[in-house]
Structures are given as structure tokens and as C-alpha cells.
């Protein structure tokens, strides 16, 4: 387990908070030309929310937005109503023990708007991480997006049991995949070790 606990790193780009303009995450020094359509999407979000959101990356067909947990509900609502995204494809919990945070990443797509068919909006937010988690009863909590995107229902249940992030307001926070009597750490946390590895 030792090899993993020492290397957790930040997936966030090193953004320059002074500029409200999105900053590309690519390591090359030469300025990369951002794809125009994707830039338009991120610009709309930045225009609406200002410095409450930060643009993590703008790549071809993918736009990454980082947002704090206080604003994630509002941003998601704007993404649905203002930008025509209509379903969530995937919700992933990513554990960052060194930063004492767990990132929850929503991959949001659109069926109803043909111009967005290729696009995935990557909405990332972070919850506080506890050393000794009691899932549901510690500070690792986020507001649910289930009232905005119905499709997150099972995904958020999975993140709750696998990463221990409790979604406040989710109507059904039971276990989904794990056994009912599971009493160990949430298994996708980095400090949950696989035997023999």
C-alpha cells in the first residue's frame, strides 16, 4: 500500500486565479489555440459565475469546470437550464489523501441538443476528507445533484459506498454494490489496501 499513499497528487491544473480567462493545462509553453466551440461553453459559465468557478481545461469535446461545493448546485442548474445539458454519464470519486479532499467528478452530456452530442462537460467539486471516516456521519458531504439530473441517482449511491461521500438531499442513500454488512473503509479510498499489493 505504501507505493500509493505517498504519491497522490492534484489533478487540478496550476491555474492563475488573477485572470478570469480560462487557462490551458497543457504543459507546452507555446500558447495553444483553444477549440472555439468548447471555449464558448466555458466562457458562458465564467460569465455567469465569475470567480466562483475555475476552468480546469478546455480540450477538444471536453470542458472541465472546477467548483466549490457551495456553488455546485447552482452551477449544475445553470448547466442544465442554460446550456442544454441533460444527463450525467458518470460520477466518480477521486481520493486525494494528501490534500485531505475527495474530488467528485460529474461527466455531463446532452442528448437533446445535437450540437452538444460530442461534448462532455466535466464538473468537478471537492469534499473534505476525514482520516477515520464514518460514512454519512462525518464532514465528507456534498449537496446532491439528483434533483437537477435524475440520472445521477445510482451513480451517487455508488460514490457514497465506494468513496464515502454522503450526498445531502439524495432520497435513497442505501448501499448498492457492496455487501450490506460491509464495515471497512470505503474501498476506493487510497488507504484501503489490497492484500499482497
Amino acid at each position, binding site marked *: 500500500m505504501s507505493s*500509493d499513499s505517498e504519491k497522490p497528487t492534484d489533478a487540478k491544473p496550476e491555474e492563475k486565479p488573477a485572470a478570469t480567462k480560462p487557462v490551458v493545462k497543457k504543459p507546452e509553453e507555446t500558447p495553444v489555440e483553444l477549440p472555439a466551440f468548447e471555449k464558448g461553453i466555458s466562457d458562458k459559465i465564467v460569465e455567469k459565475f465569475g470567480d466562483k468557478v475555475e476552468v480546469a481545461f478546455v480540450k477538444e469535446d471536453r470542458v472541465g469546470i472546477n467548483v466549490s461545493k457551495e456553488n455546485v448546485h447552482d452551477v449544475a442548474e445553470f448547466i442544465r437550464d442554460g446550456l442544454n445539458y441533460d444527463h450525467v454519464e*458518470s460520477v*466518480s470519486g477521486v481520493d486525494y489523501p494528501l490534500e485531505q479532499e475527495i474530488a467528485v*467528478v460529474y461527466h455531463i452530456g446532452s442528448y*437533446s441538443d445535437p450540437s452538444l452530442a*460530442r461534448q462532455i462537460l466535466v464538473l468537478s467539486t471537492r469534499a473534505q476528507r476525514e482520516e477515520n471516516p464514518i460514512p454519512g456521519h462525518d464532514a465528507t458531504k456534498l449537496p446532491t445533484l439528483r434533483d437537477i439530473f435524475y440520472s445521477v441517482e445510482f451513480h451517487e449511491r455508488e460514490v457514497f459506498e465506494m468513496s464515502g461521500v454522503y450526498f445531502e438531499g439524495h432520497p435513497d*442513500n442505501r*448501499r448498492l454494490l457492496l455487501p450490506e454488512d460491509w464495515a471497512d473503509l470505503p474501498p476506493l479510498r487510497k488507504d484501503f489496501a489490497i492484500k499482497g499489493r
Partner: protein
Amino acid sequence: MTTELPTDITSAAIHMDKPSSSWLPPGLALQKVDERIMTLNVGPQHPGSGHMRLIVQIDGDYIVACDPDPGYVHRGEEKMAEYRNYITNVPHLERPVIHDSCNVLYPYVLGVEELLGIEVPERAQYVRVIAAELNRCIYIMYWLAIYGIFLGHSTMFMWPAGDRELLIDLMEKMTGARVTHAHFIPGGVRNDLPPNFEGVCLRQVNYFEKRIKEYAAVFYDNPILISRTQDTGVLSRQDAIRLGTTGSVLRASGVDFDLRKKEPYDVYDELDIHTNVMTAGDAYARSKIPWLDMMESCKIIRQALQKMPKSGSVRVKLKPNPKGKGLDTVYKRVESGRGSLGYYIVSNGKPEPYRLKMSVPSFRNLIALPYLLKGEKLGNMPSVYWSLNYWPVEADR
């Protein structure tokens, strides 16, 4: 987005007010609301379904509520992937759907190639497309066989199970393995095609297409099937979108969405692809779309065989333990036999992924099940369940 969705069983759901060790098992979470209502456990030893439990509440013959309980075949693929490097992850990541093993690996190799910055040779891209389409047919034939036997139609079990062998033989020629090929690797495919493969493939695929067309008479035009599936488990277009369903479920509800066309990967943009869409949204439409997809796959394979470069490399040699270029994330998705299948890979510059998440179509379609079964007759449960193209092992990962 205005349709009122039923809140299914959530009124009976437990809000967590106890520490995790004392959670009630899901079976006990459903409360008895009425003397008339009976709770029925379907599975997890349900034959053919791959270990999946449905907790169904019935009032007489009608289903009042359904609570899917997946997880009996959870294998921890995502956790395993964090301990293995990008190459050794290949064989175990295809295990969730061995019948569709090329398609389940496809987004993974695409994602890793983007992380590592690899350009794949053109011939390898065509070989991948052919293998992926063959695998799609193999998966659909297997699904169709089970769908047939679950409806009590044993001919529809025997025919697809037999005709599937045509394509499995092809895959065996191509990859050396009948089912679990592990043929796609970052950088291309493992081996080049065997000599004379094109001719054999064309012959087999033509015969296969002729065979599956005969299924119409015995299955799809069969009045018994139609009476059991038409207007059963209807999913409206709005709800299909709102529930985030994918693949044949989505297209049977009238949404024209196929990633091979909408977000073409590899050489799919050079091929002429027709997306099959039906508007009924019932179990019949959902069972017919995959069958139409197979005929489309045959056309794609013929086109790919024609356009494929006749010689050339099929693989970029990688260094041992390839690494990403520092902090990076990638989300790649392909159209698998069941729908859009995506991988979210977080790399931190190490040879292993920092986090790997599979977003699988079965898991995404599962949310529609309680919604569709509510108000159905219990006897219609198999036809609705299988029409969702649900694969429990994939949903659990």
C-alpha cells in the same frame, strides 16, 4: 423535463441514521405498506441473469415497486486497475463483458493512447473496427439467445447460440482466443490479421447476415412475441433522456444517438453508418434495435474490409511501463453492444492510473428498470428486464 417520474420505492428507503456497520440489508428496507402487497425476491440465483437480485413488490399480478439490488458479481475492477500498469490492465478490464471484450477495452486503449500521445497506424484502426463490430454481433447474439429462452422461445435460444459460432470462429482466427481476446492494446492490436482473413471474413459475415434475416420470420414477426412485448414497459423519449439511458434503450425511444456517428473514434468517420432508431419505446422496439444493429455491423465490416490498407504495421511498440505526461485526465467513450461505454482515467505521471472509472451502459440503464416495471404484470418482467440489454457483471464491475 416536465414529466413526473415516479419516486419508486424511495419513500420506503432508509435515510442513514446509523453507522455503516448496522445498515439494514436492502431486502428489509421495503416496508409492508398493505396487507395485499407481497414482497418477492427474484434472484440472485436467477439462471442466465448473471447474479442479480430484484426485490419486487406485487399486488396480485401487478408490480407495485421494484428495487434492483446489483453487486453480486462486483469484482473491484476499478481498484485493481490502480495497482497495475497501463499494459497489464488490459486483460482484466475486458472481464466485465467477455462477450463484448473488444468494445469494453476500446475506450480504455483510446484513453491511454491519448494520455501517452500515441498515434495508431491506420491498418490497426481498421482491424479494431472490424473486431469491435464482430464482437458487437457476438454479444448481441448471446443476448438474443437469452432473451429468447426467457420468453420461452427455445428456437430463439438455439439459433443465435449456433450462428454466433460463425463469428467466434472468425475472432479465434484473428486473435487466437474464442471469447476473451485481449486483442486491443495501447498502440494498436496485438497481432496482425492471419493470411486470407479478408476472404474468410467476408464469406462468414455474408452468411451470418443471411441467417439473422431469417430471425424475422421466427421471432420478430411472431405474433406471440409481439403480443408479449408490444406496449410493454414503455419509456418515453423525454424520460429516456432524463434517466440518462443509453444504447438500444435510448434509440428505441426515438433519440438518434450513436457515438460511432456522433463522436467517431478511429476510422468510423470514414465509414457509412446508419443509426437505427425506433419511436415506440416499448420492449419490442428495444429488442429489435440490437437485431437491426447487427445488420448494420455486417455492412460496416464489409466497408472496413474494402477500405483497409492491405499491408502495414498494426502496432506501435511502446516502451516498458509507459507513463503519462504528468497530471492529466481523459474521458473516452465508445458505442458498445449495449450503449455508450466510457472510461475516466486520472493519471499522475506514474505507470499506473491514479484512478480509473468505468462508466458502463448496463449501470446507466439500470435506473430505468424500477421505472419501467412499475404497473407491469409480473409475467412481463423477463421481457422488460432483458429488453434493457442489461449485463449484471458489467454493471457491477
